[in-house]
């Protein structure tokens, strides 16, 4: 066996440097599992991180990020197709295995995972280099075959071409030989003017499978001998299992086992419905925990008290208190946002098989490395013995990026107990009751204007649970008592206000919380963009002109604002009962402005009629996916703006399914236009940044029509 130490060293060094750049050509699954190294010449096997070329010329791109709808299995392969010069229709896509040494998120350090709208920003250079390196190795192989200088050769539509002779060798023909070529240390990336794929109108790779029922989500997986489990969990957060009587559950048809696990009581059956019926028959008693008596009303009452006390300082420019005291006009307001469940259409689920040599997990996984570690702890094995097979997720929005790996570790515990493959299924009620919510927050703002209506002081206090406290992210995310995920979008307020203070109270509550699509900006954008509108009104200024005057040093904010208001015909009269509102916000290094048009009936019922969105996400690699993410982000944000809330009573969620945890329906979807700012800046994320501006834009539009300031979400569908 001809191990090639140099290539192995390359992989390791690449991973250590954070470049993670390796590539190879084809290899059999069995060999790949056994060896991360090339095998003898002639078999053309090679180590492989991102690209495989089969003898038939098929190019497979391995995507390390979870496809949950945001289009990573389209945008990332496009980067390879561009540099490798492969026609788009010849590209195949596979989810990469869990292996942080090859597939870490470059923006997160030694961890594989998807979130923070990082996939494209991470991959833009990494995958182009992977493609370009493969291209140069294929050229080298062709040069050797033809005994010519590599410099004169050209990659063209899945083949290497010798323009001098007209000879062509396809990538399939060259794959074996290319695997033996030296990995070039430096490769030249194409210049943007030569792009054939990036920024062009190519199609998603997953649409057909998602239109004929063949796309495989975690919930769809079936293994031989597999059983299905549901878990009875405490309905009140923090309660613990006191005792349970399995008798009636075990007597139900199909039920195989009932036993306690740390999360509650597992009911394992031959199929999903039998497990659900078995759980209904289960008798379990729970001991009251720290959430007993806790209600949303009490939480907000305590938050209002906390908002009277200074918190940990997130930003402190000038002297806001002094400037406030000296201002000509003072404006104060409080904003409230509730707990929110992610409620992806695919309820949580996980398939686990525990075997002698380790454990296999199949699920739509956002946090592979963390999930490997947590699963390994349950089993007492090394994390690299936990093999994660990442499938499509039917949405996630952050729910599957959980430092506790809650939905995975319970499945591992059950599979370990059973000794056969087990699929766990969460019902919709389990999902809505299950916690890991976007925290509820209170924002208390006060600002001072001078005699000319210019804001001189801005004081912003945020009260709400820290998402990262108690997790491995705390060390990196919490500085001087400030969890950045609580203040992002507020502490970096772009408006030029000389005296500006933002501080934070982070009370601890026994309600598990988590990031939710656009994280801190889900609430900071609402508070800041409604409040700035209030200041504009107090100053007697047009909301757009007022913002413009304060954004002189923020050209990218200004550009999206200008584009959106221009396309929305800001200032042009609307029918009676209609109004416009605007918001502009940066999140995850992308800039989005949205103008919402609403119509309000005499009885106060309103409808969001139209939204004009402008986005600057740097270079738009996949323009149609960018548009889709803005459309979807606006619709997702509208769910929260109008309807969604989890409220607590006696420590339990009062909502349980889509009848009372409402999300946007077809009839409520406005007509959305998306305009992309032309840019050659490095690409930034689009999965999340469409969400934050819509709630404030709608609230501001409703103010424009009704004169009523709406400072509490959800808004409902009527202004009272």
């Amino acid at each position, binding site marked *: 066996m001809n191990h090639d130490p140099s290539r192995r060293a390359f992989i390791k060094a690449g991973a250590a440097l954070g470049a993670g750049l390796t590539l190879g050509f084809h290899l059999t699954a069995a060999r790949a599992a056994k060896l991360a190294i090339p095998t003898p010449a002639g078999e053309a096997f090679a180590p492989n991180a991102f690209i495989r070329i089969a003898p038939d010329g098929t190019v497979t791109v391995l995507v390390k990020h979870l496809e949950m709808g945001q289009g990573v299995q389209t945008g990332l392969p496009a980067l390879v197709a561009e540099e490798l010069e492969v026609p788009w229709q010849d590209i195949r896509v596979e989810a990469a295995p869990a292996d942080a040494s090859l597939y870490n998120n470059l923006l997160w350090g030694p961890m594989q995972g998807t979130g923070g709208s990082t996939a494209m920003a991470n991959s833009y250079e990494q995958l182009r280099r992977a493609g370009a390196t493969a291209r140069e190795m294929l050229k080298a192989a062709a040069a050797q075959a033809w005994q010519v200088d590599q410099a004169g050769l050209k990659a063209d539509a899945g083949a290497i071409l010798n323009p001098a002779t007209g000879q062509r060798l396809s990538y399939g023909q060259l794959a074996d030989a290319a695997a033996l070529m030296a990995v070039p240390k430096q490769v030249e990336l194409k210049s943007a003017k030569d792009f054939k794929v990036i920024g062009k109108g190519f199609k998603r790779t997953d649409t057909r499978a998602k239109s004929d029922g063949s796309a495989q989500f975690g919930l769809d997986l079936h293994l031989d001998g597999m059983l299905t489990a549901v878990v009875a969990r405490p309905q009140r957060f923090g309660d613990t299992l006191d005792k349970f009587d399995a008798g009636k559950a075990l007597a139900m048809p199909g039920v195989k086992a009932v036993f306690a696990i740390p999360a509650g009581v597992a009911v394992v059956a031959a199929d999903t419905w039998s497990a659900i019926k078995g759980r209904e028959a289960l008798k379990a008693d729970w001991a009251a925990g720290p959430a007993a008596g806790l209600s949303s009303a009490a939480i907000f009452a305590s938050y209002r008290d906390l908002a009277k006390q200074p918190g940990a300082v997130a930003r402190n420019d000038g002297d806001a208190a002094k400037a406030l005291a000296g201002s000509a006009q003072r404006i104060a307001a409080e904003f409230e946002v509730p707990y929110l469940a992610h409620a992806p259409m695919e309820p949580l689920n996980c398939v686990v098989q525990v075997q002698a040599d380790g454990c296999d997990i199949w699920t739509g996984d956002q946090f592979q490395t963390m999930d490997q570690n947590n699963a390994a702890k349950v089993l007492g094995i090394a994390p690299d013995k936990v093999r994660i097979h990442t499938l499509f997720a*039917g*949405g996630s929005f952050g729910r599957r990026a959980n430092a506790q790996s809650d939905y995975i570790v319970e499945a591992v515990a059950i599979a370990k107990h059973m000794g056969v493959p087990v699929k766990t299924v969460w019902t919709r009620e389990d999902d809505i009751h299950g916690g890991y919510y976007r925290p509820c927050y209170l924002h208390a703002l006060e600002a001072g204007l001078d005699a000319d209506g210019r804001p001189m002081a801005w004081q912003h206090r945020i009260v709400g649970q820290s998402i990262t406290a108690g997790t491995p992210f705390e060390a990196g995310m919490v500085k001087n008592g400030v969890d950045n995920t609580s203040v992002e979008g507020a502490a970096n307020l772009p408006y030029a206000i000389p005296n500006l203070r933002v501080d934070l109270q982070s009370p601890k509550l026994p309600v598990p919380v988590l990031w939710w699509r656009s994280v801190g900006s889900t609430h900071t954008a609402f508070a800041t963009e409604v409040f700035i509108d209030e200041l504009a009104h107090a100053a007697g200024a047009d909301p757009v002109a007022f913002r413009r005057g304060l954004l002189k040093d923020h050209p990218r904010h200004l550009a999206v604002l200008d584009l959106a208001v221009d396309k929305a015909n800001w200032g042009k009269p609307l029918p009676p009962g209609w109004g416009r509102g605007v918001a502009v916000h940066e999140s995850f290094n992308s800039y989005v402005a949205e103008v919402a048009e609403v119509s309000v009936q005499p009885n106060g019922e309103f409808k969001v009629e139209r939204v004009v969105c402008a986005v600057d996400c740097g270079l738009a690699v996949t323009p149609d996916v960018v548009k889709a993410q803005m459309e979807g982000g606006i619709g997702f944000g509208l769910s929260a703006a109008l309807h969604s809330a989890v409220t607590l009573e006696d420590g339990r969620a009062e909502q349980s399914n889509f009848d009372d945890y409402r999300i946007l329906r077809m009839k409520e979807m406005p007509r959305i236009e998306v305009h992309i700012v032309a840019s050659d800046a490095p690409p930034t994320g689009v999965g999340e940044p469409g969400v934050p501006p819509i709630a404030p834009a709608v609230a501001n539009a409703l103010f424009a029509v009704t004169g009523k300031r709406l400072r509490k979400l959800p808004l409902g569908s009527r202004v009272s």
Partner: protein
Amino acid sequence: MISFTVNGKPHSVDVPGDTPLLWVLRDHLRLTGTKFGCGESFCGACTVHIDGKPAKSCSVEVGKVAGKSVTTIEGIAGPVIEALRAAWSELDVPQCGYCHSGQLMRAADLLAHNPRPDDEQIDAAMNGNLCRCATYQRIRDGIHAAARRLGA
């Protein structure tokens, strides 16, 4: 044993008659294109056709389907679904895609009865099918595009 036809093939299943059709399709017949979203007919992800009419399979007891003909996303055929699939591809309608089996089964029923629906008719027909990714605008546009294809 409960006997019925799925996608043109006869099937007999030995399950309690109150088992939802959804779980029979998914767990017993392994037709997993039909999705579980809520279990209470709030979301429409589980939409199938029973004797040609759309139904939310999470809320249909399999015992009530005896002798009937069920069509799922895997089995639906003909010019309407092909036009919808072509439109879905043309506009890249799905994002996560999980709800789209149900969306397409519902849309196919709409177009079968109303070859040129307007926005309001589309909204009314599709309002029971939730999409958490909010692909609603492209669903609307996709149905219009499919209607144009069928009219051509």
